[in-house]
């Protein structure tokens, strides 16, 4: 039995404790904004916030989540108006869009801790999030646009 908070709501999970958070979010809670891309923490499509840190939800088991708080793309901002989301739209970042929830969650976590990152800090933070359409140039521009002093 695991008690976990997801987007501010308490949930109790009594299934397979080895189930990664990703599949709990997607298959059990229906929070499909968190995407499946690789299953082994190599692509970042499933990035969520765990107590404020960006983590790959495919790489953490439900048994490790007791008492923790998870925020997914659906819970990032009630109106979808988080500065990173707004910047993403202003810059017209997405192509297919599949990786973008993960990219946005990663960028939001970066800016929460480092409100005015250097280019190198953006590169380092976003390194783990693959975009196969190749939107990196715009992702970089959008992170910069959402940062302090932009």
């Amino acid at each position, binding site marked *: 039995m695991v008690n976990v908070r997801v987007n501010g709501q308490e949930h109790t999970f009594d299934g397979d404790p080895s189930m990664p958070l990703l599949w709990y979010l997607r298959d059990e809670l229906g929070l499909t*904004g968190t995407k499946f891309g690789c299953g082994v923490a190599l692509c970042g499509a499933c990035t969520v916030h765990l107590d404020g840190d960006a983590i790959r939800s495919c790489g953490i088991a439900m048994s490790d989540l007791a008492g923790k708080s998870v925020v997914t793309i659906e819970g990032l901002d009630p109106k979808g108006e988080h500065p990173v989301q707004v910047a993403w*739209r202003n810059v017209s970042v*997405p192509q297919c869009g599949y*990786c973008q929830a993960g990219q946005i969650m990663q960028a939001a976590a970066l800016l929460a801790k480092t409100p005015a990152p250097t280019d190198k800090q953006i590169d380092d933070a976003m390194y783990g999030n693959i975009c196969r359409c190749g939107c990196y140039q715009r992702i970089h521009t959008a992170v910069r646009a959402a940062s302090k002093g932009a």
Partner: protein
Amino acid sequence: MTYQRNQQNVAIANVSRRGMLKSVAGAGVFVLAAQFPAVRAAKAYATGADKMPHGVVTNPHIFVSIDKDGIVTIVASRAEMGNGAARTSLPMIVADELDADWSRVRVVQSPGDEETYGNQDTDGSRSVRHFIQPMRQVGAGARKMLENAAAKRWGVNANEVVAKFHEVVHTPTGKKLGYGELAADAAAEPVPAPETLHLKDPSAFRYIGKGNITIVDLFDITTGRAAYGQDVRLPGTLYAVVARPPVFLGKVASYDATATMKVPGVVKVVAIDGSPPPAAFAPLGGIAVIAKNTWAAMKGREALKIVWDDGPNASFDSVAYKASLEENVRKPGRMERNEGDTDAALKSAAKVITAEYYSPHIAHATMEPPAATARMADGKLEVWTSTQSPGGARDDIAKRLGLDPKNVVLHEMLLGGGFGRKSKWDFALEAAVLSKATDGAPVKVVWTREDDIQHGFYHTVTAERLEAGLDKDNKVVAWRHRSAAPSLFANFVPDNKLPGFIELGMGFVDTPFNVPNIRLESGEAQSHVRVGWFRSVNNVAHAWAIQSFVAEIAHQLGRDPKDMLLELIGPARIVDAPKKATTEWWDYGEPYDTYPVDTGRLRRITELVAEKAGWGRKLPAGHGLGIAAHRSFVSYIATVVEVAVDNKGNLSVPRVDTAIDCGFYVNPERIRSQIEGAAVMGLSLAKYGEITLKNGRVEQSNFNDYQVVRHDESPAVTNTHIVENGIDVPASGVGEPGVPPFTPALCNAIFAATGKRIRRLPIGNQLA
């Protein structure tokens, strides 16, 4: 820039038993017209659209409707995989001709149904070129009917009214009626005769050519609401993963699912049959584990004990295969085009330059691995999936399951990337087959990344050998190019060993060079994996080899690579390659009169990119510039790459300039995004892209050993330069053509920076 909150793909929320139109456009909508014959306005140009299966349908009741509140609903019938054409650019064309307020336009996705919507196969970079004219006609027809309805309401002459931005205005008095107020009357109006249709003058366009509209799914994508094939969730869904034969054409010899059935959540284990070759898009076969959630299915699959019969490809080995391809381009092959006497000209040449290039199989690795959900109930099948060919998929699923296509509904989801992989609907067939075994419960087949990398339809492996004969004045007088690459036609034709006309037409028989003796030949290449088209297909390897070779000739002669390229392209002319081809000529399915190989445009695009990139500019040490130009998908593209290589051999790309002439263009904002993305994809395939097989098995499995370019190594800046063309210049491809010139421009830049010539892809550690 505006964005809109787009309504969800209606197909998923809807019931299948409603009529086609209702299920797409919703109830309570005034539909504009009943019948609208396909016509061409006077200025229309011919495309190959009519030759596509089911052609183009321009009946406006299929594509556009207006409700009493004035909301215009435009149906997207093609697949949206990220280039924005299907769900934004094509609807935008309708909205422009209709003179609609884009903020009051909704886009809904049609199901797979080519009889109703026309061809839905979203391949070949042809959405805009095939649909710009029909979409304009649909919009203009609807506009005319609204104007006629208003004129009748006011009792005035129709030439006194004009539709303007979601209202019809009576010009003499300034009276106005909104589109919503007129919708019901407009629906009763007769369909305008083709000759009365007035397409807008381009100066009146609101959206076309402006880049002022963002993609319709932008809000949903940035909030996690956009739904892809992997995201389908229906009540009672079961989840399946499949253990597929590790070797192509292998089979299950025996299996033991005892341990699998003990995994909590596992419901059932089902064998799926493979098909003998040529298997087209049939499932590979294997053992499916069906469970209550994806994780349980994956754990259940791990617990399977399967003995495989590896079949005819058990010993296939990429290293040995490379040698066989190279051997086959070192001897004469099937002649594909012949001009002059190339063999004699090479013999008598003052100098002969020869080079060989090898590029391996690559995998599409779409960010969304393939997925499909299927539900069989009462002899009717519903499928939810992300495919580039919803109509083709539906019909094939019906055929293989022995169902009437009318009893198969295919709900098309957004594609998390396509690149050609999702033109092949094997994953949807798997779900359809499994739905027969779940007692009416929906079953969702999830491909993992490992499944995707190891069971793909791979971009072909190729060996290219080029020889140029020079006369005493160092003019290229002979050009012999031999290419050997397993063909995608092996999926459809038994024992196929030579390329098909489509592959030959992609940057090979259409070689645009001004050389008196040209001989092009194909070497034999048997396929041992599923070869499938990948963004730009054979253009990638052909352009890489040819454009690298041009720079190699330039170097040997001490010439500037751009000047050498322009000299080979020669004077502006229409290449009469179709007359010289000795095998079936194919020009992307288009009529050659409309889309000839025009070396004037190829020259201009080369000159334009050189000028914009500052060709010849002074660079820091370790930097180099490379150039390449290539026509593909009837567009002309040229790229200059600036590369930096450090003393450890690490390469980075500070700047890319790409110029594109894609005829009359619709959405420059999405053209730029495609060109930026093509540079990243080109860099990925150049730096890392390689699928290898040993003992018939793919050696790569995930993004650790099948790497793609990441954020920090992406080109820092890609500048896109779009040629302005009038509406009389036929629209041409955008999605694919950006890829082919990138890799040779990069490799030419690497040579300029380091003196190291790349003749084998990927680059890997060759610069270390």
